């Protein structure tokens, strides 16, 4: 009773105190987030700043965050350096030939798992998921031997592209299958009544509804291929065939010339390699988050 009456009389001040406390918590959260955010961005921001400095500025004591004069020509210099343009193009070729393959074939395979009943379906599905557990180290060596001995494909892009055209990996298929399962079958049935065959159902009914999931899969595949180091490292040894990730490492391992530090140019190349991934993510961010959440990744 007593408590109730206190609560009744003091409810106004109570509410004010509560609001003040909530505001304090909110501000503390903002402060913590801001500090963490700065810490998180600092390395990359410093890299961008360094990519716009002169070589001598990179060794300045004490270090300055901003360049004296912004050296945009660093980008022109690095970009017009023959090998880098070539490496960049090579990466684009590999990615450009891989992503459509992964999206296309993963859609077909996911469709078969999500919408058809056929003998051994659950068995194949389990087999597919079990490949997620198998470390790539196991298959890397025999794959290399197969590509090298039977096809002579060392120093070509084929070993980097082919895996995308056979479903693009278990995770990709799983993601799309989960997404397809959420689309009501009534839609298929309606289209079937209208005389559509199974491919027409997939193409004109399901694919348009899958756009967020397809965008997610395409981005993930792009990032995977663009960032891939081990594949190119194992299969490509001719510097002309290098992708960006190999090229950047090549650039880093070049002996420092004693004349002028090259750090600023190395950072320029680092930024150039990161730009496509970041740009792509920002253009499709909405789809991406939606795709991850909707594909039931959360549990």
């Amino acid at each position, binding site marked *: 009773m007593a408590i109730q009456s206190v609560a009744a009389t003091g409810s106004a001040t109570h509410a004010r105190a509560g609001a003040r406390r909530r505001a304090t918590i*909110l501000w503390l*959260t*903002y402060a913590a*987030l801001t500090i*963490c*955010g700065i810490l*998180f*961005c600092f*390395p*990359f921001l*410093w*890299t961008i700043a*360094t990519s716009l400095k002169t070589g001598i500025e*990179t060794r300045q*004591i*004490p*270090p300055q965050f901003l360049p004296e004069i912004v050296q945009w020509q660093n980008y022109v210099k690095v970009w017009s350096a023959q090998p880098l343009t070539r490496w960049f193009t090579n990466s684009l070729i590999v990615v450009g030939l891989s992503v459509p393959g992964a999206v296309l*074939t993963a859609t077909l*395979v996911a469709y*078969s*798992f999500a919408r*058809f*009943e*056929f003998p051994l379906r659950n068995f194949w599905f389990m*087999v*597919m998921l079990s*490949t997620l*557990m*198998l*470390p*790539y*180290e*196991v*298959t*890397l*060596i*025999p794959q*290399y*031997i197969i590509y*090298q001995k039977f096809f002579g494909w060392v120093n070509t892009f084929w070993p980097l592209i082919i*895996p995308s055209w*056979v479903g693009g990996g278990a995770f990709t298929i799983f993601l799309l299958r989960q997404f397809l399962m959420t689309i009501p079958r009534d839609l298929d049935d309606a289209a079937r009544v209208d005389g559509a065959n199974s491919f027409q159902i997939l193409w004109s009914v399901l694919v348009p509804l899958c756009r967020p999931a397809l965008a997610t899969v395409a981005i993930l595949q792009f990032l995977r291929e663009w*960032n891939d*180091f*081990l594949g190119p490292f194992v299969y490509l040894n001719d510097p002309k065939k290098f992708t960006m*990730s190999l090229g*950047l*490492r090549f650039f*880093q391992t070049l002996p420092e010339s004693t004349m002028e530090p090259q750090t600023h140019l190395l*950072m320029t190349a*680092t930024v150039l*390699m*990161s730009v496509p991934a*970041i740009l792509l*993510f920002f253009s499709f*961010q909405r789809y991406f*988050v939606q795709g*991850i*959440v909707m594909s039931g990744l959360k*549990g």
Partner: protein
Amino acid sequence: MIKESRRRSSPARRRQIVEAYLYLSPWLIGYLALTFIPVLLSVYYSFTSYDVISRERWIGAQNYIDAFTRDDQFWPSLGKTAYYAAVTIPVGVAGSLLLAIFLNVRARGTSVFRTLFFMPSLIPIVASTVLWFWLLQPDWGPINRLIFNTTGVIAPRWFQDPSWAIPALISLALWSSVGGTRMVIFLAGLQGVSAELYDAAKVDGAGAMARFRHVTLPMLTPTIFFNLILGIIGALQVFTSALVATEGGPAYATWFYALHIYKEAFQYFNMGYASALAWLFATLVIVLTWVQMRLARSWVYYDGEK
């Protein structure tokens, strides 16, 4: 029953099966050619001595015996990988969860922060390693300069010091993964916890900490488990950052297990021995995952009948 058997034999049903396998075929072909056959070959190679140029020679279990008894880098590389994983996984998963909790408040501007934290994970691993290597360069890298200029302390030589090289790689891994997809998955998990549960807890008089401990955490255990499994597999396979930054050095300090396999296979062309190493590794990963699945029964909470 009758319907079943009729359906099974009807031409329409047969057509459906053929179509299903047609759609399945890209993966099926890929599985046979790029996984199934390589797995069989890999098992076979692991019992041979094989340098790619000359024919393989059957040597029985010798590769496996050598790994445990004669390989100087076998146990050390396992130990270094374990050290790296033992720090990266718990700190990384806890860090992602903490960030997600902060970002889960319904307030303006959180999407900007989410993007800020996500950014490092978008930077390609080779690029972020090059960046980190320069950032922690002992003589003129900005971190050591800043530390020296502000405190006068001479910071460790990071990638050049055998005892600081792994911590340097760990810091890189944490920076580039804490705010990435793992955090997005946690955020989705947090948003999936129903408001009713919180309201019920509030009515029962639970404070913020109690609500976190007794509502949020149990409801998130499936997500934590999922991220833990992915984290273990990822951390044990650490390769690219160590190769680009230090190539296993200095003095074998970052000679991780995956690097050991790579060097044996593609530098010394001991394909048979490297296959045996890969199988020992696969066994370890599978056993660890299995143990995690068993342990999960006692701490992962599944809603409903799942």
